[in-house]
Every structure is written in C-alpha cells, then in structure tokens.
C-alpha cells in the first residue's frame, strides 16, 4: 500500500495515532526522566529556520531569545508570506541543498510531496533517544488531528504538528438577532438562514466565503464532507464527480450567487474578512485563526458581536474540515540535533498555550485546551473554545493527501469560479475531474 495514491481512512489514521500514543510511555521511560536533560548540548551552533509569516510565527520569533539562552544555539530565522514560502521550500528541496535546517510545511498541501521527495528527517529515532529529547516533551500530549497530518502512510513521523486549523462558521450575532435567525443546524439551513439575512439594499450579504480560484476549494470540500466523502478516496480514486461532490458544488454555487456580496468570484480570505469585519456579511466560513483580529475593536466593527460555530452537519455526515502546519528538519541538515531541540521548544506546552491565548490558532497539543484559566480569561469567550474542541472531535482533512495538491486546487478552483459565473456544477466537475486525472496518475510515477 505504500506506493499507491493513499488517503488513509479515518479509522486507519486514528489507529495509527493510537499506536504512536501507546508507544510513547516506553519512549518516555527511555529518557533520563530527570531535570538533568542537557539543553546545552549543541551550544554554539547556528540553525536556520524558514517559517510562514503569520501571527503564529510572530509569537514564536518573539521568544527566540528564550531558546537561545536555554540552549546556547543561535537561531537565524525568516518568516515569509505563505505562497512564497511554499515556492521557496519547493525550489530549495528540489535543487538538493536547502539553505535551512528547519522548515514549516503546510501539511494539507505539502505532506505527500515531502514524503515523495524525501525532504525531511524521520523524527521517531530522536524522540526515542533520551539524550536528545527532554523528559518534559510529552509526545502523548499531541492530539490525533495533528498527528494524523504529521504521520506519513508508512508510519514515518517527518514533521511535528504546530497548529491545527479547523474551518468554522463565523456569524454576526447582531444581524442574526435583528432578523430572528437561529444558528443553522444543517448545511441546508445555512442557505435558508442566509436568504433571510441577505439584504442587498443595505449592502449586507447573507453569507461570504472564498471564491478566488485555488483558495475556494476547501469551501467546496467542506460541503462535500457533509456527505461523508473525501475528494480522493483511500484507494486513490477521484471522487470529484460523484453525486455527493456535485451536491457540494451546487451548494457552493448557490451560496456564492444568491446570498453573497458582489464580486466573491475574486474573494480570498482577505476580502471575506473585510466584508465580515465591517458587518457587511452575516456569516463567513473560514479558518479558526481569525478570532483575534475580529475581536480587536481597532480592526473590526463587529468586535463583541461575533459568534463562532462548528460547521453544521451535512445530509449524511458531520465533520469539521481540518488543515495543519508542522515543523520538519531537512534531510540534508548538518545540525539535526540542534534543530530537534528547536522543534521541542517551539512546540512545547508553554508555547502552544501562548498561541491559543493570543488567539493565533488552535494548538496541536491537548493540554492548552484544558487550561481552564486561559479559557476563563480569554477575550474570545467560551463559544470560541467550544468551537475549537467541538471541531477537533469531528475533524477530517479538508484536502486530499496527494502530491499535486496545488494543481488540484487550481483545476477544481477554476471549475468552481466557472460555476459562480453561471456554469453547471455537474458539467464543470466532470470536466475538471477529466483534466486532473492524468495529473494525479502522472504524479505518483517515477
């Protein structure tokens, strides 16, 4: 099964994560379970880190001094915008001599390509090595959703999850109250609610989500997950022209043409955020990390009025689409030991909690989410935390684990924009599936 196009089934994945979890106590026992762990072992080395520019990297970078004092290792880090970072990663790995030791990958996009290209170091031996892994690392604490993304189909753990992103439904409580609308229970309800909330005369849209090619694909897969179906099944077959996929695309089309702001065909998260933050959209489907800016009164007109909800159930299933980022160590790195110390530090409990506290995203560890004090004192309110926990419980990857994820998003992204432009979902999906099929087959060859 190792060489086919694989998207492991949920059961398989959970089983895999379970195995890892069971193995963990043994690993911990192997470690010198004392405070005598030598963080200074690689003092004097310099490690290069390539991260993605986001509020998460801002938080981590701000604490680099702490790591440098702890270990005596110098960190030379760079965070660049997501799209450029993915290109850089690709070029540097493919050219054979990456200039960084540590890289942050978008696992929902780059997981399979990293495995195929043998980009990263397997972390399992290092976790098992008590001289390299601090006893308070607590591998068990990483949640299943994160480990699902980090574990390759052959069991290799080549990244450490940093951040798990669940897509949620943001809603404007004030607009909902004005029109007496309840939070939708099903995906069909979203459309019904949006119709009630939609008020073009006032410039208020019922629902907003990404329409821009590529960025829009997770919106469609979200609806498709409501039919309990992934875009690529566990045998590597494309499910993108099934009735379930068409149903998702039809919902996508209606939401984007009947109750959306003008121009959503070109909207990325940025434009959606602007519409929602100015009170001009009643609902918005996107990643969980937007709470901080939305609750910031200097950046948002809806601060204090934002409701957070788990993606409503579909006709057949109830899932929250998940995405994740993780840290990896370059296969060719000469400073793997020092790099591993950085990974342990960057994903430790304190830093993961810090990320949650700042609303920069949902952590890949369980412990921060059970930190009662954080939840009580947070400005995001209990609803946001409930949404994180609730989404985590029903999480399912929102994109297929294949090599050409970007092309997948491109081809199906174009199909979806064509639908917003009026094209028939069924025809468009059939066309896109036909176009993508050879790309997928070609990608696993050689």
């Amino acid at each position, binding site marked *: 099964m190792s060489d086919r196009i694989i998207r492991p089934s949920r059961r398989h994945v959970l089983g895999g994560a379970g195995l890892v979890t069971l193995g963990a106590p043994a690993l911990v026992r192997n470690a010198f379970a004392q405070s005598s762990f030598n963080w200074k072992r690689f003092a004097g080395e310099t490690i290069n880190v390539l991260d993605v520019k986001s509020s998460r990297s801002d938080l981590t970078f701000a604490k680099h001094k702490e790591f440098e004092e702890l270990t005596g290792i110098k960190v030379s880090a760079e965070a660049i915008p997501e799209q450029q970072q993915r*290109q850089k990663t*690709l*070029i540097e790995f*493919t050219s*054979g001599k990456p200039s960084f030791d540590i890289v942050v990958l978008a696992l929902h996009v780059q997981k399979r*390509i990293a495995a*195929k*290209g*043998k980009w990263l170091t397997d972390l399992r031996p290092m976790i098992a090595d008590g001289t390299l892994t601090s006893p308070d690392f607590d591998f068990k604490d990483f949640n299943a959703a994160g480990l699902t993304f980090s574990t390759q189909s052959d069991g290799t753990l080549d990244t450490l999850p940093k951040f798990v992103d669940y897509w949620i439904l943001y809603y404007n409580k004030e607009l909902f109250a004005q029109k007496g609308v309840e939070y939708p229970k099903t995906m069909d309800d979203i459309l019904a609610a949006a119709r009630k909330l939609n008020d073009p005369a006032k*410039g208020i849209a019922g629902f907003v989500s990404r*329409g*821009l*090619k*590529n960025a829009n694909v997770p919106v469609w897969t979200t609806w498709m997950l409501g039919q309990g179906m992934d875009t690529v099944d566990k045998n590597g077959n494309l499910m993108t022209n099934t009735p379930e996929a068409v149903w998702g695309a039809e919902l996508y089309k209606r939401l984007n043409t009947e109750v959306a*702001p*003008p*121009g*959503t*065909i*070109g*909207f990325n998260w940025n*434009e959606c955020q*602007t*519409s929602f933050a*100015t009170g*001009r959209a009643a609902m918005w489907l996107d990643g969980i990390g937007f709470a901080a800016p939305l609750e910031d009164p200097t950046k948002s007109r809806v601060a204090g009025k934002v409701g957070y909800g788990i993606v409503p159930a579909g006709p057949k299933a109830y899932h929250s689409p998940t995405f994740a980022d993780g840290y990896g160590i370059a296969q060719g790195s000469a400073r793997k030991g020092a790099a591993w110390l950085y990974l342990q530090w960057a994903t430790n409990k304190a830093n993961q909690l810090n990320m949650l506290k700042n609303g920069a995203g949902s952590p890949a560890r369980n412990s921060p989410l059970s930190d009662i004090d954080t939840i009580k004192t947070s400005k995001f309110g209990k609803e946001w935390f409930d949404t994180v926990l609730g989404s985590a419980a029903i999480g399912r990857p929102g994109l297929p684990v294949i*090599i*050409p994820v*970007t*092309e997948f998003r*491109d081809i199906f992204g*174009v199909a979806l*924009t*064509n639908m*917003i*432009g009026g094209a028939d979902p069924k025809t468009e999906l059939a066309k896109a599936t036909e176009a993508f099929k050879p790309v997928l087959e070609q*990608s696993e*060859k*050689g």
Partner: protein
Amino acid sequence: MSTAVAGMSRNYWPFILPALIAVLGVIVFPWIFTLYMSVHDWNVSGTVTFVGFENYQKLFTDQRFYEAVGHTLYFTVLAVVFPVGLGLAAALTFHREFKGRGFLRGIFIMPMMATPVAVALVWTMMFHPQLGVLNYLLSLVGLPPASWVYNASTVIPTLVIVEIWHWTPLVMLIVLGGLANLPSEPYEAAEIDGATAFQKFRHITFPLILPNLMIALILRTIDALKAFDTIYVISQGGPGTASETMNIFLYLQAFAFFKLGYASAVVVIFFTVVILLSLLLLHVRQKTKWNV
C-alpha cells in the same frame, strides 16, 4: 589607431564587448538550462528523464495555454496603446513652459517610481466591490458600482488601468528626451511660413521624436508582454483564468506546480514569440532612425 582619419574603418568592438559578456554571462546558462529542461521531465524526487517533444506536444493541445496567449495579446495591445498615446500627450504638455512645471512633472512621474508590488496591493483594496474607494467615487458621480477585477469581463481592462497609471510617465520621459533635443531652426522657419501648431507637430515634431516613440513602443511592448507583478498581486490570473497571461501561466507551471519541463517549453515558445515581435519592431525602428 591614434592616426585614425574620418572614413577609415574604426574598431568599436572594445566598447561593446564588456556589456555583451556581462549580459551573455547571466543569460546563457538559463537559456541552455531551459532548452535542456524543455525536452525533459523533472519530478520532485529529483529524477530527470528525457521525454523528447512531449512537453511541446502537450502545450500545443493545452486549451488553457491558448487562452493565456489570447489574454496576453489583449492585455499587451491595451497596455501599449494607451500609455504611449497618453505619454506622448503628457510629454507635449510638460515640454511647454509654465509655472511649477518641474514640481508637477515630478509628481507626474511618481507612479513609475513607486514599487509595483506595493502599489498593486493598495489598488487591490481600492477595487473591493463593497468597500473600495473607487466604487465610492463612482457613487459620488451617480454611477453604479463596478466589479473591477472581481469580474471576468472587466478584469483585464482594470489591470490595464493600473498599468497605464504606472507606466505612462516612462513613455513621457522617453519622449521628453527627444523633445528636449529638437533643433529650433525648423520651428523658426515654420513660424515664418505661418504654420499652425498642429502642422508643426505633424511635420516637424512628430518625425523628429519618432525614434523616441519607437523606443517607448518597444519597451512598452516588452514590458506589457512580461507584465507580472501587478497581475500576480491583484488578480493572480483570475477570476478563474480570465486574466491568466502567458507569464502567469508560466509562473503557475514552474513555481506552483513545479513542472519545470513543461514550464521550460512555455518559456521557449514565449521567447520565440517575443523574439519574432522584437525583430519586427527592430525592423521598424531601423526604418525610422534619423540621420543628422
């Protein structure tokens, strides 16, 4: 050589060689690499396999590539004609004497100084269909909101507006250079003959600045064909593929999909088109070269 006499053959090669070597030094390797890659396939595991002309065959059956060529031509024609026309008008205007000319000319050329990426990001926000300042300005004069780059049929003209804003000053500067070097005798003669302003422009100014206009035209054509930053930042080729030019198509293949072989084939075709076009323009330029 020190005894060179006019008319004797003079060796000007030493003047040219350093520049030629510098330029070729940078571009020869990429050319060879591109030609080589265009008949190969390079996958992510780093294996390179010879595939013959497969990449080209695929390219010639790729509907999206043909569409990209169409978008490129549409964009290029608009993004050449308007800046050259307006740049000529601007140069004639700023060539005249008036109070505050230096300052206003400075303001006029500011757009071309501004970093395209930064400017493009600000334009993007101005185009927002719900909250953009441009739709507000339209509403002030009683016009309905436009969807700018958020609509397949208006995206290219909108991108051209940004291009015009950005590069008309460049054309103006080039033409201005020509205007500044105009001899005054023909005008004096025309004045005596009682020629109108338009006649003077048509029969004296225009032929004399034609070489500068040709330079502007060539530079604009090349730059419009190569336009990338603005489109990449503002529309990324969208909505859908509505503004996907050859350059954006190339970018997607090379940097997003990492199909280096296929992308190299695109470069070779793209390059051939540009060369053919340039030869045509060079030919025209030679025809219009003035002799003193």
